[in-house]
């Protein structure tokens, strides 16, 4: 069966195309587009250059450092006196200082942050959310030097009135204040993670006769666990990199004592100490700056990568 050819419209009556058709062929390069795309790409490249610069800088100066000081002494030594005689370059006291402040902060911030997140996503009404969310953002936006001030003028005197033995500069004060600082981060990120859990999961559990406590702890939090754990890791990484509050609150004494009532020094506080002094370029003291900074950078990088992996890997599974 042939198609019926349309013979109704005589060929001569076909409308002229309104204007002379332009060719659809390319007429030269669009220079404007090319230049703009070039500029945008260049800007994007800046971020790559930044990372490369950080890595190259830290690595090269650290290698210089390891020409003088053996990695063994650096990573395993327990005395850190690079600026005095006799100089000793064991970095463990700094790592220890960072660790006890961070762990202390985590003990404070993780349970409370998670509880706040649970409250915000499972229990709070919309009006309450509208008040608390901005409050959390404000708390998160407070500069660290303000927390340092808070530690020195409020927390430490408070602690001293309760625990008379505690020093003016102590790790506990720093841990408390850093904990308060990272709390909003955990609360906000975990809240986002919990809210992303589909409502159908909750309703299924409620339909089986579970209480809100059971639904929250046995269904919602496990479902959003990847996001919640990622938030913990990011907060810990932030605590590790925290500088001003610990410098002001915890002091400048690197030591490895187990007591949180004494002054310690974190990696970040050491870096600040060196740069506030007059360090000649190239000297061994200058190089310790980079060695410690590299260690700090690597630790936070590893934690950040792990948290990203957790977010990406386990998010698929639960969806």
């Amino acid at each position, binding site marked *: 069966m042939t198609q019926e050819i349309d013979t109704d419209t005589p060929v001569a009556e076909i409308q002229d195309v309104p204007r002379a058709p332009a060719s659809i062929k390319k007429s030269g390069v669009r220079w*404007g*587009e090319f230049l703009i*795309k070039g500029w*945008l790409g260049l*800007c*994007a490249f*800046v*971020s*790559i250059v*930044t*990372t490369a610069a*950080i890595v190259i*800088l*830290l690595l090269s100066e650290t290698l210089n450092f390891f020409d003088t000081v053996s990695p063994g002494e650096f990573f395993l030594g327990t005395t850190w006196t690079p600026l005095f005689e006799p100089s000793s370059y064991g970095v463990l006291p700094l790592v220890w200082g960072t660790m006890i402040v961070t762990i202390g902060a985590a003990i404070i911030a993780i349970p*409370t942050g998670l*509880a*706040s997140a*649970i*409250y915000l996503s*499972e*229990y*709070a009404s919309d009006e309450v959310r509208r*008040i*608390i969310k901005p*409050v*959390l*953002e*404000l*708390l998160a*936006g*407070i*500069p*660290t*030097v*303000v927390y340092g*001030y808070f530690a020195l*003028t*409020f927390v430490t005197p408070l602690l001293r009135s309760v625990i008379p033995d505690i020093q003016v500069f102590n790790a506990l004060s720093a841990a408390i204040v850093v904990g*308060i600082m990272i709390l909003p981060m955990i609360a906000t990120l975990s809240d986002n993670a919990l809210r992303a859990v589909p409502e159908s999961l909750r309703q299924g559990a409620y339909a089986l006769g579970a*209480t*809100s*406590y*059971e639904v*929250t702890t046995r269904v919602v939090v496990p479902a959003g666990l990847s996001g919640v754990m990622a938030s913990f890791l990011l907060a810990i990484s*932030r605590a*590790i*990199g925290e*500088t*001003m509050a610990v410098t002001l609150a915890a002091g400048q004494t690197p030591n490895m004592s187990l007591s949180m009532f004494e002054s310690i020094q974190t990696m*970040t506080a050491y*870096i*600040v100490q060196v*740069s506030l002094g007059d360090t000649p370029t190239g000297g061994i003291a200058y190089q310790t*700056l*980079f060695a410690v*900074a590299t260690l700090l*950078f690597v630790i*936070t*990088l590893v934690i950040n990568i792990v948290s*990203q992996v957790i977010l990406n890997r386990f998010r698929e599974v639960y969806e």
Partner: protein
Amino acid sequence: MPLTTEQEHRNLAKRHRKARIFARFCAAVTWSGVVLLGLLLYQVSIDGFGWLDWQFLDSFPSRFPERAGIKSALVGTVWLIALVAVISIPVGVSTALYLEEFAGRGRIAKIIEVNIANLAGVPSIVYGILGLAIFVRYFALERSLISGALTMSLLILPVIIIASREAIKTVPQGIRSAAYSLGATKWQTTWAHVLPASFPGIMTGVILALSRAIGETAPLIMIGALTFVAFLPEGPMDSFTALPIQIYNWVSRPQEEFHELAAAGIIILLAVLLIMNATAIYIRNKTERRLK
């Protein structure tokens, strides 16, 4: 053996009680966070309010607390933020546009994306060291405003990029399709439709990033912002101080009066941040309502 109804009933009551206690616990914890914030602000205000006067705003720092002021720090901060804005906004927004509109989903785009996510988590003090080695020493820009501004720009660039990308992603794809179907190029579409539509979201992100830059101390210490500056900077190559540095300097002194001065400085700093955050939230709410 199944539970008797009596046992089930008691069990249920216990479970309900547990649920109630848990709910109240979570609420209490959250609200105590709010109380804590109030406490902190109250404390700072009490300490510092007495020192807040015109003389405070108009004087340079001094060894004598009665004569000390934050003029140089305030001016330094204003200079710094202006320079940071001029540098970081174009670069950050351009990067976000590149990643969202021009780059596709290829390998390079993925690498840049992961890279930016990592840079966002690098401690600010590492940026300070970078600034020290590259801007102050290598490019010999000395301990100047421009060194500080470049360092801070690198620090907040990931924040701007991530926030801008989120804003650009919310522009409905239909608008782009419509523009392309009319014979528009990618840049024509981006400039005429995508950017204007995502502008409020980008602005919010930029303001929040800049408010982060205002409060950062560690990188400025690293590049050598001075702590006793009795003059006003007049150009980008001048040395300078900034609000958080001045506050830090006063807090680390033993005398009580300097602590109170620090509190006054903190009030100013927090006031500035509050205004900026409120503006960002206002912009965000206005656009959310418009889209509804």
